[in-house]
C-alpha cells in the first residue's frame, strides 16, 4: 500500500477515534448521578447571621426550610404538566403564561409598571431551553433532567412555588442559608478554586463539551466527587445547600418599592468569581429569562409539615 495512503488512514482513524471519545464522554456526562437528591429540604433555624459584604448582624426570627438544590428541569416539567392540567397556567402559542396580580406602582424614575395580568413564565421555542412541549405534555430534555431549570422568568419561578404552597426565599433567607453564622465570602468558605463551582472560568466538563453557555452542571455536581478526570470541591453551604454559588442565578422573592426589578443571587456559569460571593446580586425585570437563571424555593415550617 502506498505510504501516503497509509498515513492518511492512520490520521483519519485518529481523528475518528477522538470524535468518538468526545461523543462518548458527552453521553457519559449526561448520565452523571451526583448522588444529591433535588427533592430534599433543609431546616434553617431562627437566629442571627451576618448580612452582606460588611457583615451586618441580622436576625431572622423564624425557622424556615429551603431546597437543598435548585429546581431541576425534571421538577419544573412535572410542575408544568400539573399546573396546566389544573388551569393554574396556560399555553399561548409556544409561551407558558400565568396570572400575576400586579405590583404597587409609584411612578418612580426608571420604574416600569407591572400590571395585573398574564405574564410570560417560559418561552418554549427559545434556544437553549431544556424543556419540551409535545403531545400535550412537558418533558425535560433527556440527559438534562437533573440540571437546574433555566430560561424561567421570575413570574415562572414564583408560580412554581405558589403552586405547591411554597415561596421564593427572600434575600435574607437566601443569604443566611448560603452563609451560616460566620462571615465567609463563599458558601464553602473564603478560598476559591475553579473546581468549587460552575462559573465562567471553571472549565468544567460540561463547559468543555457543550460550550461556555451550554454548560449548566447537574444540581449538586460540586460535592467533592470525581467525575472521570474532573475532581470537584465540595461547595456545600454550612446548612448543606449545593450550588449557592455558581451554576445559575437564583431568583429571590423580594418585591421592593419604587423599582420593578426582581433580584437574583449566587452568580452563575456566565459570571466571574466576584459575582459568586454571597452578597453579590443581579437583577432584571420579572419577565426576564436567561440561560443562566433558575431558582429554588423556601417554605415555612407549617407548610413543611403539611408537605411531609
Amino acid at each position, binding site marked *: 500500500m502506498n505510504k501516503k495512503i497509509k498515513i492518511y488512514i492512520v490520521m483519519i482513524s485518529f481523528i475518528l477515534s477522538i470524535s468518538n471519545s468526545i461523543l462518548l464522554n458527552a453521553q457519559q456526562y449526561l448520565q452523571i448521578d451526583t448522588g444529591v437528591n433535588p427533592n430534599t429540604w433543609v431546616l434553617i433555624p431562627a437566629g442571627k447571621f451576618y448580612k452582606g*459584604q*460588611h*457583615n451586618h448582624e441580622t436576625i431572622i426570627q423564624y425557622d424556615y426550610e429551603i431546597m437543598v438544590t435548585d429546581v431541576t428541569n425534571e421538577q419544573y416539567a412535572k410542575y408544568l404538566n400539573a399546573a396546566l392540567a389544573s388551569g393554574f397556567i396556560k399555553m399561548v402559542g409556544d409561551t407558558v403564561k400565568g396570572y400575576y396580580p400586579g405590583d404597587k406602582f409609584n411612578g*418612580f*424614575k*426608571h*420604574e*416600569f409598571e407591572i400590571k395585573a395580568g398574564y405574564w410570560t413564565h417560559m418561552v418554549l421555542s*427559545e*434556544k*437553549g431551553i431544556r424543556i419540551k412541549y409535545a403531545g400535550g405534555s412537558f418533558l425535560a430534555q433527556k440527559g438534562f433532567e437533573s440540571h437546574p431549570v433555566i430560561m424561567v422568568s421570575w413570574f415562572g419561578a414564583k408560580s412554581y412555588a405558589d403552586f405547591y404552597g411554597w415561596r421564593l426565599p427572600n434575600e435574607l433567607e437566601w443569604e443566611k442559608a448560603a452563609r451560616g453564622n460566620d*462571615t465567609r*465570602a*463563599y458558601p464553602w468558605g*473564603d478560598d*476559591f478554586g475553579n473546581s468549587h463551582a460552575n462559573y*465562567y*472560568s471553571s472549565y468544567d466538563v460540561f463547559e468543555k463539551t457543550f*460550550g*461556555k*453557555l451550554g454548560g449548566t452542571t447537574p444540581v449538586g455536581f460540586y460535592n467533592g466527587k470525581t467525575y472521570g478526570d474532573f475532581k470537584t470541591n465540595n461547595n456545600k453551604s454550612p446548612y448543606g445547600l449545593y450550588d449557592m454559588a455558581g451554576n445559575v442565578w437564583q431568583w429571590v422573592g423580594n418585591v*421592593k*418599592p*419604587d*423599582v420593578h*426589578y426582581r433580584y*437574583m443571587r449566587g452568580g452563575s456559569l*456566565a*459570571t*466571574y*468569581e*466576584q*459575582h459568586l*460571593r454571597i452578597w453579590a*446580586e*443581579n*437583577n*432584571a*425585570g420579572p419577565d*426576564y429569562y*436567561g*440561560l*443562566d437563571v433558575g431558582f429554588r424555593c423556601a417554605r415555612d415550617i407549617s407548610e413543611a409539615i403539611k408537605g411531609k
Partner: protein
Amino acid sequence: MTAFLNKYDFLFRSTKGLVLVAISMIAIVTAIFGTLSGPMVEWGIRDITIKLMGMEIHPAQREGRIIMLYHTIAMAVVAIEVYFITSIVPMRKHQQQSINATITVGYLTAMIFGLWFAYFGHNFVFHGLFLLGQSLVFFAGILLASALNPWKKEYHVMDNDYSHTKKGVDLERVAFFTMTVAMLGSAIFGAVTGSYWGNGHETFLGEDIIRTPHKTPLQLAIIGHLHIMLTLVAVALALVIGRWFDFKGILHKIAMPLMIFGTIVITLGVWSVVPFEPTAHTFIYVGSVFIMTSALLMVIYGWRKIIHDRLAELGLEKAGFIKSIKALLHDPIKFGTLWQMVFMNFTVSGVGIFLAVKLDKIFRIWPFLEERITLTGHWHILSAIIATIILMFYADISGMKGKTRKWFGWILIICSDLAFGSMTVFSMKRLFVDQYSQQSVVNWTMILTDFGLAAVLIILALFLSWRLFDLFKSEGLWKKELSNPELDIKTTSPVLSSYNLEEEIK
C-alpha cells in the same frame, strides 16, 4: 557620586524626568496589578502573582482594594498633568519647583503605601500614609491654583492671537485655573465621603448601585466625584495638548470661553447631584456640549496645522485632498493625540449619549450585569484613551524620531483603537446578539481586545526599557533632557518662564 546626583536631578527635578518616573510607576503598577483580573485570572497568572509577591487577598475586600488601586494610578496621572502644566503655563520657577516636589512626594507616598495597605496586609499606618500622600497631592493643587492666578498682570497675553479679555487676561490660563479649582472642589467631594469610611460610609463601586432607587448623599457624592475627576483629567489633558499645538487664532478665541464655561457648568452640575439629582444631569449634558465643542475646535485647528506644517516642509503651498490626507497622517504621534480625542466620541461619548437616550428602552431591560458591563467598559476606555494620549505626547517629548516614531505611533493608534472598539462591541453585544448565540462574538472581541492591549503594553515596555537603559549611559538622552528640562512648547505669555529661584531670592 556626581553621575548619581545628575540622574537624581534628571528624574526628580526636571519636568521630563518627573514625567518619565510617573509613567514608569504607572506601568509597573499596571503590569503587576493587571494580572489580578480579567483573562489573567483564567490563565492562572493571578495565583502566581499572589504567591510570588505574598499578597493577602480577601474576597470581601475586593472593592476596597480596587478603589485604592484606582486612586494610586489617578494620583500619578494627575501628577503627570501637573508637571506638564507647570512647564508650559508661565509661572515663577520656585512655584514650579514647590508644586512639582509636593505632588511627587504626594503621589509616590499614596501609591506605595496605598498599595501596601490594600494588597499586603492591613497595616493602618500605611493607610494613614496613603491619606497623607493624597493630602499632599491636594496641597500641590492649591499651590498650582495659586500659581495659575490669571488676573496677575505679569501673565496677561502680549500676543493678540491668543484668547484674552479686553484687559488682557489670558483665557487659556483661566481655563487651566478653572479646571484646577474645579478639581480641588471635586476632590473634596470624595474626601468628605472618605472621612466617613467606617463611620456611616461603606465601600462600594459606583457601577454596583446604578439601579438602587434611593442612594444616600454619600453614595451620590462618590458617584459625582468619580465622574467629574475623570472629566477634569480629560479637560486638563486637552488644554495641554492644545498648548502643544500652539492653539491660537479665531478657533482659540472661541474654544477657550467654551472650555471655561463648560468646565464650570459641568462641575456645578456634578456637585449638584447630591442635593438635586433629578436635574443635575441637564447641567452635566450642557457642560459636556461646551467642552466637547471646544475640544472639536482644537482638533480642527491641530489637524489643519499638521497639514500646513507638513506641506510647508515639502515646499508646497497648496495641495489636493489626497496629499492633504497624506500630510495629516505623516506623523502618527501628532495626528494620533487628536485622533484619539475624535475616536473617544465613538467609544465613550457616543456610547454614553446612546445609553442615556435609550436607558429605559434598552439598557434597563437587560439584566443589571449587562448594563454594568457597558458602564465599566465605557469609563475604562476613556481612562485608557487618556493614557494613550499622554504616551504619544511623552514620545514626542522624548524626541522620538524617524521610523521608531512612526511604528510607535501607528501601533499605539491602531492596536489601542482595535482594543477599545472591540471592547465597545463586547459591552454592547446584547443589541445585536442573544445570549445563546453570543459566544463567537465574545471570543472574537476578547481576542482582539487582548491582542490590542498586549501590543500597546509591549511597545510601552520597549519604550520604557529604552529609557531605562539610557539612564545607564553617561551621555544618554537623559543628559540632554537634563540640560533642557522643560517642554519645548510656546507659551501664551513668555514673560516669567526664564525666572529661577536664585534670581528671585536675590
